[in-house]
């Protein structure tokens, strides 16, 4: 389950970076692209971090 969550988070992060850096934005959509790309990048990055730290804390507990 956690792996699925990590996979989706990475997908969201990559899509956000793609929209931010590589997508050819039409003039009329500059503002919406600015918001959506950064929203996805922040959400994706924080989800990935949460997943990593959650996993490591579980591992530490089981080792103890």
């Amino acid at each position, binding site marked *: 389950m956690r792996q699925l969550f990590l996979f989706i988070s990475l997908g969201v992060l990559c899509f956000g970076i793609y929209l931010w850096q590589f997508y*050819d934005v*039409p003039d009329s959509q500059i503002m919406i692209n*600015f*918001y959506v790309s950064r929203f996805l990048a922040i959400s994706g990055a924080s989800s990935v*971090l*949460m997943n990593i730290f*959650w996993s490591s804390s579980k591992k530490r507990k089981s080792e103890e």
Partner: protein
Amino acid sequence: MNKVVISIFAFALLALGGLTAYTFSPLSKKNVVPQVNPVSLVPTENNIPINSTSSAVLDVYHNRDMAENYYTVSVPKNWKLEPNKPAGSYTFLFPNGTCTAELMDVPDNSTLELYILSQDESALKHSLSHYSRTNYQKISIDGNEIYQLTYTSITSRILSKTVRAYISGQDRAGLLTCSSAQDTFTQYSSVFDAVIKSFKWENSK
């Protein structure tokens, strides 16, 4: 749930809130949407005449509004620059006509020529009264491909003739639209040619 995860979650929520506030506040429009650079509006003088038959000299405008799309365009000194135009564009007024220089966004999944013939010309047909194409040609100047569309239309009950030149570029395309009343077009034709040939990308290398 450990403290680190909670703090990352809280930080993400704060960041998203900040992003939302920033994007939709009046201040952000200034930073996100390209603005006119004051340098773009100050021409430099070029003492070279327009052509061999005219002694009128050109003003050179260096557009610095959009990164990757810096360009220069020269127009006769007596043409009047209209104020308050969007970033990357100019509109010049002269007796019986206008000339605009602007940047055009061509989608990545199309070529410039395909875009002109399939989208832009059909938009012109719909928006202009009595649109009629009189010429279409492709020329190359200084390594830039230029597609030149000439047409007549009726604007404010006056038959006008327009030459519209699309200059291929690395990011956007340059677009020059010079228009005058049909009976004075011949008089301006060589000037329009000089203006079109003066268009140069400044950061194409």
